[in-house]
C-alpha cells in the first residue's frame, strides 16, 4: 500500500482545540460546564410553531438553491431595520447551513492559491482551517487585552502584504466578547479601501451587543462593495440546531458562492427556512428579552471574576468572558485541566482560539444565574487554593 487514502492538506490540520477538551468533559459525568458556545434558551415557541405548521402543510421539498425568496426578503427587511444595511434579495443574499457554511463558501469562492487571509485571534476555530482548505494562506493577527481585543488600524496595516486578499472581522467576538464600535470600524474601513482588501465580516453575535448599538462595517460608505456579510439564526434566535445562516455580498462574489452551495449542499433545510421567516419578522421582543437576560448574567459574571481577583476586561458582546490567569504561572490548558480535575468545572482554555489566547480562559454565560453561581463558587475555591499553595 503506497497510496495515502487521505488528502495531505486536511491531514496537516489539527482538530479543534474545543473538541479535544470536549472529549475529556464528556467522560466526566458530574462535571459542570461553562464551556458551551450556544444559547441556553429554547427557540421561541412561535418560531417552532411555524416550523410545525410548515410540516403539517407538507412543505418538505427543496427550496431554490439560494433559499426561499420569502425568507431572503424578510432577511433584507430585518438587516435594513436593525443595521441600516441594504441588500437586494434577488441577487445579493443567500441562505446557508449556518454561518459556518457561509465562511467556507466565501473562502472557496474568493481565494486563489497563495492569497493571504488576515485572521485576528483569539477567534472562532474555523477561519484558519477553512482558509487553508480553500488554498489560502492564513495570517493571524494577535489582538491585545489592552485594546480590549479590538482590531486596530495599525495592527491591520502591519500585517498587510501584496498578497493580502481578505480580512476576517469576527465581532462581536467568540471567545473574548469584544466588539468593534463605529470609530474602530471607520479606521479599519479606511485601511482596507487604501489597500484594496475584501472583508469577511462574521456578525453572528450582532444581536448580543450590550449597552450600545451594534454597527456593521458593511453599513459604512464605500465598504459594502468589498464586504461579505455573514450572519445567522443560531445566536440571535437561539436556533443552533436548525442550522440556518445567511450571507450577503456583491453579486459578483455571491454568484460564485452560490455555485459551490448548489453542488455541495443544494439548499438549507426547508423547515428551518420557514421557521426563519417568523424569526426575523416577528421576534424582536423575544430577542430583546434574551439579550437583557444575558446582560444581567454578564454583569454578574464580571463581578464574580473580579471578586475572586482575576483580571478581566469588560466585554460588551456575545456571551463570553475572557479572564486572565497569568498570575498563576501555568498554561491555559494546564489551568483548565486542573480545574476540571479538582473541581469538575469545565472551561475552555483560551489557546483553543489561537496561540495568543495563552494565559486566558473562555467562560460562557449561556447559563442560568444559579448554574453560574455553583460553577463560580467552585472556581473561586480553586483559585484561592492555588494562591495559598503559592505562599
Amino acid at each position: 500500500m503506497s497510496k495515502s487514502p487521505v488528502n495531505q492538506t486536511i491531514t496537516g490540520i489539527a482538530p479543534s482545540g474545543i473538541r479535544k477538551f470536549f472529549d475529556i468533559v464528556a467522560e466526566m459525568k458530574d462535571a459542570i460546564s461553562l464551556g458551551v458556545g450556544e444559547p441556553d434558551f429554547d427557540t421561541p415557541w412561535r418560531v417552532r410553531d411555524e416550523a410545525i405548521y410548515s410540516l403539517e402543510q407538507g412543505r418538505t421539498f427543496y427550496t431554490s438553491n439560494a433559499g426561499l425568496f420569502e425568507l431572503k426578503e424578510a432577511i433584507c427587511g430585518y438587516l435594513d431595520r436593525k443595521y441600516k444595511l441594504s441588500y437586494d434579495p434577488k441577487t445579493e443574499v443567500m441562505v446557508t447551513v449556518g454561518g459556518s457554511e457561509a465562511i467556507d463558501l466565501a473562502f472557496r469562492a474568493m481565494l486563489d492559491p497563495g492569497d493571504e487571509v488576515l485572521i485576528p485571534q483569539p477567534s472562532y476555530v474555523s477561519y484558519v482551517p477553512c482558509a487553508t482548505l480553500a488554498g489560502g494562506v492564513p495570517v493571524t493577527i494577535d489582538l491585545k487585552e489592552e485594546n480590549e481585543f479590538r482590531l486596530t488600524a495599525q495592527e491591520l496595516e502591519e500585517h498587510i502584504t501584496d498578497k493580502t486578499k481578505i480580512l476576517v472581522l469576527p465581532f462581536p467576538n467568540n471567545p473574548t466578547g469584544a466588539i468593534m464600535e463605529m470609530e474602530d470600524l471607520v479606521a479599519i474601513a479606511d485601511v482596507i479601501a487604501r489597500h484594496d482588501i475584501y472583508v469577511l465580516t462574521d456578525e453572528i453575535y450582532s444581536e448580543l451587543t450590550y449597552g450600545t448599538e451594534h454597527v456593521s462595517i458593511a453599513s459604512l460608505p464605500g465598504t459594502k462593495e468589498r464586504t461579505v456579510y455573514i450572519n445567522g439564526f443560531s445566536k440571535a434566535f437561539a436556533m443552533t440546531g436548525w442550522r440556518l445562516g445567511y450571507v450577503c455580498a456583491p453579486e459578483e462574489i455571491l454568484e460564485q458562492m452560490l455555485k459551490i452551495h448548489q453542488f455541495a449542499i443544494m439548499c438549507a433545510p426547508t423547515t428551518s427556512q420557514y421557521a426563519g421567516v417568523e424569526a426575523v419578522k416577528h421576534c424582536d421582543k423575544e430577542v430583546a428579552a434574551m439579550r437583557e437576560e444575558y446582560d444581567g448574567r454578564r454583569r454578574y459574571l464580571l463581578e464574580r471574576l473580579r471578586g475572586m481577583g482575576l483580571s478581566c476586561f469588560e466585554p460588551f458582546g456575545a456571551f463570553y468572558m475572557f479572564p486572565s490567569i497569568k498570575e498563576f504561572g501555568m498554561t491555559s490548558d494546564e489551568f483548565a485541566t486542573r480545574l476540571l480535575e479538582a473541581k469538575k468545572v469545565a472551561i475552555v482554555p483560551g489557546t483553543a482560539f489561537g496561540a495568543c489566547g495563552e494565559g486566558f480562559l473562555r467562560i460562557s454565560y449561556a447559563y442560568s444565574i444559579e448554574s453560574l453561581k455553583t460553577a463560580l463558587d467552585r472556581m473561586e475555591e480553586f483559585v484561592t487554593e492555588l494562591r495559598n499553595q503559592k505562599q
Partner: protein
Amino acid sequence: MQEKILNYIEKNSRIDLHELAVILGEDETAVMNTLEEMEQEHVICGYHTLINWDKAGIDKVTAMIEVRVTPQRGMGFDKVARRIYNYPEVNSVYLISGGFDFMVIIEGRTLREVAEFVSQKLSALDSVLSTKTNFILKKYKDHGTIMADAPKEDERVGVS
C-alpha cells in the same frame, strides 16, 4: 429602575439584594430603597410561592366562578366586589367585560366545600343574579410557569 426591579423579581423574588443590584447594574442601596418604597406603596403586594399542589400529593379544588350581579343604587361594582373578596376562601376577584361581571376564583379542600360556599354565601348575596361554577381539572400553566411538563435537562453538549 422600578420597572427593571419588578420585571426581575416577578420571576424570582428570592434573589438576594446584592446579586439583584449586580445583575441590574444598579447601586445596592438604591435598589434596597426602591424595593422598600414599592412595598410600602403596595406596588409589591407580597412574595408568594408558586406551588404545584398536585405534585405535592395534596388535594385542592379550584373553581372559577362566573358571577352576574346587579349593581344596586349607591352600591357600584366595587362594593359588591368587596362583599365577595373579603371572604378568605376567595383567592381572586376580577371585574370582567363580556357576558358576566365577576370572575371569582375559589380554592377549597373538597368539592363540597367549594359548592357550599357558592350556594350559601356567594349566591345568597342580594346583588348576585346568577353564578356558573367551573372546576379546574388540570393546571397546565400558572403565572407564566409551565406545570404540566417535567423540568428540562440541559441537553447541550458540554463544550462547544
